[in-house]
């Protein structure tokens, strides 16, 4: 009843091609943005901002990157952690070598470095597919983490291999890293970067390059016959995906951890992000966010649950209950909708349009 596009006429191509063709969606997204930019930093406690919202945003960004590669271009990858490490260490090297460089430029350049490495590790994708490619990208995960552990130059010869992030400001004295910064500023910074990159990703998937990726994903031979260059399409997917992962990794190290070591980007993080896009929805921008929310926020909510309900349980029991409930919910959602939470949302929308008179 409320969610219906009847009466909304599109009188121009631009209106027809809009990201959100339905007015209710536009209002909804505007509301979400207002809440995210305005209300959350005002109302959210330090705990909410720094341990829930910032990790959620950064994981979303990394999931977005992997979704471009795996969800849109169909190239299964387990190298996400490696590309994130690449971005983080590139950002660290850049910002310590050129302390005057603005953090935004550092982030962009670290994304570019990660993209370059991504192209390099994407080369095998021209020959191998599917699970075999996943194993090939696994090599990048292990190789890159090993490289940053082994070569002391990357950590500026820190004896233990842990680097600490120097304080850096975006404009003037608005610090986004280090002790001068506040969780609210860090959150807003992460949110801005993620918003811009998400918008870019959405548009990329809607234009020629995104269609090339999807053609390759759906049937690479057919795509080649109709004139899509697999080399161009696959490597661009690797490059852009790695760019996103690199920026996410740099932000993860810089604004979330504050000091990091190569093992912060181990295989666990790659799996975690792969699970996010599988649960959230392959080939969906929204799915990346839903998946990240599911994997990051839900366990925290579950571990806070018993205390919030007034139950006094032993520490170990709370932890075990959390793992059990979380596992159960993953199974539940994958059985109910194997295509992920994004598909569930789409079905909900379809139903809503017919409500209250479904036929």
């Amino acid at each position, binding site marked *: 009843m409320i969610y219906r596009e009847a009466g909304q006429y599109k009188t121009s191509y631009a209106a027809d091609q809009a990201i959100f063709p339905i007015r209710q969606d536009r209002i909804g997204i505007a509301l979400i943005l207002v809440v995210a930019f305005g209300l959350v930093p005002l109302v959210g406690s*330090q*705990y909410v901002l*720094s*341990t*829930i919202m910032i*990790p959620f945003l950064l994981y979303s960004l990394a999931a977005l990157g992997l979704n471009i590669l795996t969800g849109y271009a169909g190239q299964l990858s387990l190298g996400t952690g490696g590309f994130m490490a690449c971005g983080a260490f590139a950002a660290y090297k850049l910002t*310590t070598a050129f302390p005057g460089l603005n953090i935004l430029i550092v982030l962009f350049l670290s994304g570019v470095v990660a993209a370059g490495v991504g192209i390099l590790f994407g080369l095998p994708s021209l020959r191998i597919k599917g699970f075999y490619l996943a194993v090939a990208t696994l090599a990048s995960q292990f190789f890159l983490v090993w490289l940053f*552990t082994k070569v002391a130059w990357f950590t*500026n010869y820190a*004896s*233990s*291999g*842990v680097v*600490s992030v*120097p*304080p850096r400001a975006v404009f003037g004295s608005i610090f986004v890293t*280090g*002790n001068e910064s506040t969780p609210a500023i860090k959150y807003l910074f992460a949110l801005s970067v993620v918003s811009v990159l998400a918008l870019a990703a959405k548009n990329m998937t809607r234009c020629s390059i995104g269609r090339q990726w999807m053609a390759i994903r759906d049937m690479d031979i057919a795509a080649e016959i109709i004139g899509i260059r697999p080399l161009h399409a696959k490597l661009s997917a690797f490059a852009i995906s790695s760019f996103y992962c690199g920026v996410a990794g740099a932000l993860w190290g810089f604004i979330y*951890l*504050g*000091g*990091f*070591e190569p*093992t*912060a980007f181990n295989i666990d993080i790659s799996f975690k992000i792969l699970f996010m896009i599988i649960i959230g929805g392959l080939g969906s921008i929204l799915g990346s966010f839903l998946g990240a929310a599911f994997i990051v926020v839900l366990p*925290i909510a579950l*571990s*806070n649950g*018993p*205390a919030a309900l007034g*139950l*006094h*349980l*032993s*520490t*170990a*029991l*709370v*932890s*075990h*209950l959390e*793992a059990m409930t979380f596992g159960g919910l993953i199974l539940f959602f994958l059985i109910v909708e194997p295509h992920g939470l994004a598909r569930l949302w789409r079905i909900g929308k379809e139903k809503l349009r017919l409500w209250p008179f479904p036929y």
Partner: protein
Amino acid sequence: MRKLLLTAVTLSGLALSGAGDLGMARAEDGQFFGLLPYRTGPYAPTGIPFADGVADYIKLLNERDGGIGGVKILTEECDTAYNTDKGVECYERLKGKGPTGSAAFIPLSTGLTYALIERTVVDKIPLSTTGYGRTDAGDGRVFPYVFTVPASYWTGADVAISYIAQQEGGFDKLKGKKIAFVHHDSPFGKEPLPVFEALKQKHGFQFDVFPVAPPGLEQKAVWLRLARQVKPDWTIMWGWGVMNATAIKEAAANGYKVDHMIGVWWSGSDQDTIAAGDVAKGYKSLAFHAPGATFKVHADIKKHLYDAGKGVGDPAAVGTVLYNRGLFNAVVVTEAIRTAQEKYGKKPLTGEQVRWGFENLNLTPERLAQLGVEGFMQPFKVTCADHEASTAIRIQEWDGKAWKFVSDWIEPHRDMIRPMIEASAAKFAAEKGVTPRKCD
């Protein structure tokens, strides 16, 4: 449906009966102390005895003395599962609880320590990392909120070499000797390398490094090369978790003499040697506190807690190495709170006030005797500049059933290590743009 209902009822029953009040802060007034144990996850076997040691000691203070200076200690545990992200979340959750926020934190994980160093400066909460974490944090001018009492990996490495020299008959005998270093390939394992390099230059022994990729279940190649090709006179090991038992077993399997292996204090717990089996007999490790349950504090814990049915963990674990390490940690933090109370009064204190207590902590032999831990640990004194207090360290040996001391307390070479710590801290300060505070 009925089945579902039944499950739900059983689950909630389980939940309600589950070890009731353990580690939960009550609404009453007191000094809050947030705990970050790992009772689940891959490292739980080592995390549980440590967590029980801390919890038991605090419970003992509450039961026997009514807290510290009459102020009850409220604790709440948040399980980190030895996962840094979860640990940070737990830290953020607990730091502001209680009337004045958490008095201090014991992260018990190198990764989590590094993640918390910056946060604790902002939140003004002391971080107590006993024998792990960042070595150069012993410089209190650069790291005002981190305390690394009573030892660091650098003093540990130095004492290990001193012990080898003792056994070989003097430092001059070290020349030409072969010493191997097997380490967990992580910041934790790499931390002592600078000291070994410096000592190698000084004494002229041959030094071979063997990194082991975490978690360390696969070490065949390392021990094959070490035991058959390099054949070192002594082997020093910096391992953690499952790596330790695997290393001892592999060493024995390859014919290497286990009694010439010295582990760091994280490679010398009952969990490691029992898992390795009979071959572990004679294996040695560094220790900054005593093993065993022979001290007065253990008798008190038995009398006031376990005999009254109020003990937190398994009674059999009392006196094991990691349980004792938990006790040690609890003693340090609670004594810091007590010291701070002398200045700020007997009331719940903030993290910043407790930091003053840490910086003025002076555990004299008399004080240790009063606490019932005489001979359990070395007396030490923390100052504003020296957050490590570098106490002497002993070597303990596994006799097949229990850990026993086999050396006297060995003093580290502070005159060599302290300048290294200060240089490293200064480098950190320069990179971070931190101005070291004045300490006089």
